[in-house]
């Protein structure tokens, strides 16, 4: 229901900079996912949007209006906290009802709204309990229900599914996405989980150490990583990164030789995804380090002089450890990164 704009936002805690010069434009009705390693500033960013933390510098706008001096209460955002933050003295029913009461939603509507929200997170049987009598996953769902019970300008969700089992997580993921489409509420969603990010996001923001590394659609992030950090963060297993040198249209490293754009020279890092490698070929020579069958696919680790390379081999692939092996790359899917880590050699 509103766009969010962060312009040159900085947040420092004393001398430590938690978020650095952040520029972010969340379009109206967009589902934006913040993805990054622990401590990279995702929660801090979210708290600034919510108004729980004041940016040290920069502007925050919601729906075009400057929010810097607007109290958290008046920003009309709903947030799912990483630590749930349920009210321990109230039943789950009262917890979910609290925002309705505080926002003066007519009493007659309360029960309907609460039951709908509770049903969505499969919390129906627990409405009479206090938060203390729920499991971690149930508390998390209660926190989610409390956020979605009303229709705010913005949803902020800080790892709302982190404590659920795989099955429930998958079903809640679909529900959240569906709900967001239906309610058309701009959503910022924080997660550690790539699958969650890939499946939910309209766009993903990858952060590291308080700095945005890349903003793009899931496809974009996956197939066009902007730098080695993004390349090494996305995918499971992530992209193989091999340091070497480029000269006269050939990239070489210990045991590795591939063609590269003629414009490249000097120290270059080669990136290749595990699924773009196959057993047999002439791009890489090494020894088998490990073979891990998982059923539908076999993970193969190949040792070269400098580095272990992960490969997704066919389901029936088997090989004795330490045997010599040759690997071929899909040379249309090679990535090259310069010394500063940024992508180079793109046509």
């Amino acid at each position, binding site marked *: 229901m509103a766009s969010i704009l962060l312009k040159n936002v900085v947040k420092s805690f004393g001398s430590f900079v938690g978020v650095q010069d952040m520029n972010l434009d969340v379009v109206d009705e967009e589902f934006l996912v913040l993805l990054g390693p622990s401590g990279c500033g995702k929660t801090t960013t979210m708290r600034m949007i919510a108004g729980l933390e004041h940016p040290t510098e920069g502007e925050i706008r919601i729906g075009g209006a400057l929010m810097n001096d607007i109290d958290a209460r008046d920003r009309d955002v709903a*947030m799912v906290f990483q630590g749930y933050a349920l009210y321990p003295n109230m039943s789950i029913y009262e917890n979910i009802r609290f*925002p309705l009461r505080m926002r003066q939603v007519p009493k007659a509507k309360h029960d309907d709204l609460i039951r709908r929200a509770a049903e969505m997170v499969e919390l129906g049987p627990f409405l009479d309990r206090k938060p203390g009598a729920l499991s971690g996953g149930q508390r998390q769902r209660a926190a989610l229900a409390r956020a979605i019970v009303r229709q705010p300008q913005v949803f902020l969700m800080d790892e709302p599914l982190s404590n659920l089992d795989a099955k429930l997580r998958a079903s809640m993921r679909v529900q959240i996405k569906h709900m967001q489409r239906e309610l058309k509420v701009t959503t910022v969603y924080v997660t550690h989980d790539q699958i969650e990010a890939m499946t939910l996001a309209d766009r993903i923001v990858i952060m590291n150490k308080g700095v945005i590394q890349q903003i793009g659609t899931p496809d974009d992030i996956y197939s066009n990583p902007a730098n080695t950090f993004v390349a090494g963060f996305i995918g499971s297993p992530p992209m193989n990164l091999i340091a070497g040198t480029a000269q006269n249209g050939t990239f070489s490293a210990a045991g590795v030789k591939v063609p590269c754009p003629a414009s490249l020279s000097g120290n270059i890092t080669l990136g290749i995804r595990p699924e773009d490698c196959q057993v047999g070929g002439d791009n890489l020579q090494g020894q088998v380090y490990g073979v891990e069958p998982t059923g539908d696919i076999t993970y193969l680790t190949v040792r070269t002089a400098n580095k272990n390379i992960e490969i997704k081999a066919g389901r029936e692939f088997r090989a004795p450890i330490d045997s010599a092996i040759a690997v071929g790359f899909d040379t249309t899917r090679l990535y090259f990164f310069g010394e500063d880590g940024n992508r180079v050699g793109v046509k």
Partner: protein
Amino acid sequence: MLVAARLCRSKSMAHLSQKLEKGAAKAAPAAAVYSVRRPRSAAAKKMFPYLLVGPAVLYLLAITLYPGLFAMYQSLFVVKFVNWSWAGLGNYTRIVQDREFWAALGNTAIIGGLSLSLQTIIAMTVAFFCYRDPFVRGWRIIFLMPMLFMPSAVAFIWKLAFNDGRVISDLLMSLGLASNNVDWLSSVWLARLTLIVADVWQWTPFLFIIFVGALQGQDEEIEEAARLDGASWSSIFWNISLPMMRPIIVVAVTLRGIDITTMFTNVYIMTQGTPGGATETMSYFIYRQGFRMFNFGYASAASVLMLLITIVVAQTIVKRAFKSGKS
């Protein structure tokens, strides 16, 4: 079966400990010089813990239980110094018909009740307004200052301020609130007011410290969640902070309440029960009976009654408060 099993276990235990001891003796001959282990009998071993806590228990018994029991015993006699004559429950039957006793009980309830309510409200209000203040966070201990003064000194300060020194009268006159000197002991309610003011001044900090501590201890994220849910600070307080603090409030107020029922120093120094016994609290009544009129048995009986009343009232309040807090 069970007994056999037990025997078995204790046997194997004994065996094990023997082994252990042997091992220890072999392993540490040097240590043996320092810890000479005399074999102790089982009975001595059992007695050891009791010996350790014994002195403390004796001490407590001597200063609390003995006087208590003595008072209960004495309350059954008419005592004229060394002459004790058996009275049975005579003292008690006289007391329940004693107008002054009931008046003292009423005064204690009125003065104590008002004072306690005021303290609680003031302490809670101030705590609510300043618990996030960085200064209060760091220096809350200095708010305890009034409590650190000697009670009798505080009583004298207020006696000076109200009566002898006329500080407060002067203040009121200069503010135009009074036309001439106020004689604080001339009216029932003014006299009671002086006691209440003195008690509130000295003891509000006690409750304040506890309330501030409780508020500071609550999860900040919960407050933030409530802010985002649209709650004002006051509705956060009423809906979340206050209910969560309930057990702490009950305990603190009960402690303070028990303390207030024994209010003596201020009465003794500031009003002596005047005017017309309107400020005579139970403690002062007991003191007057015992040490002015030397009715020791009678005073003891009053003490025992007071103790019973306090226990019953406190117990009821605490029980109620915790029960309704749970449901």
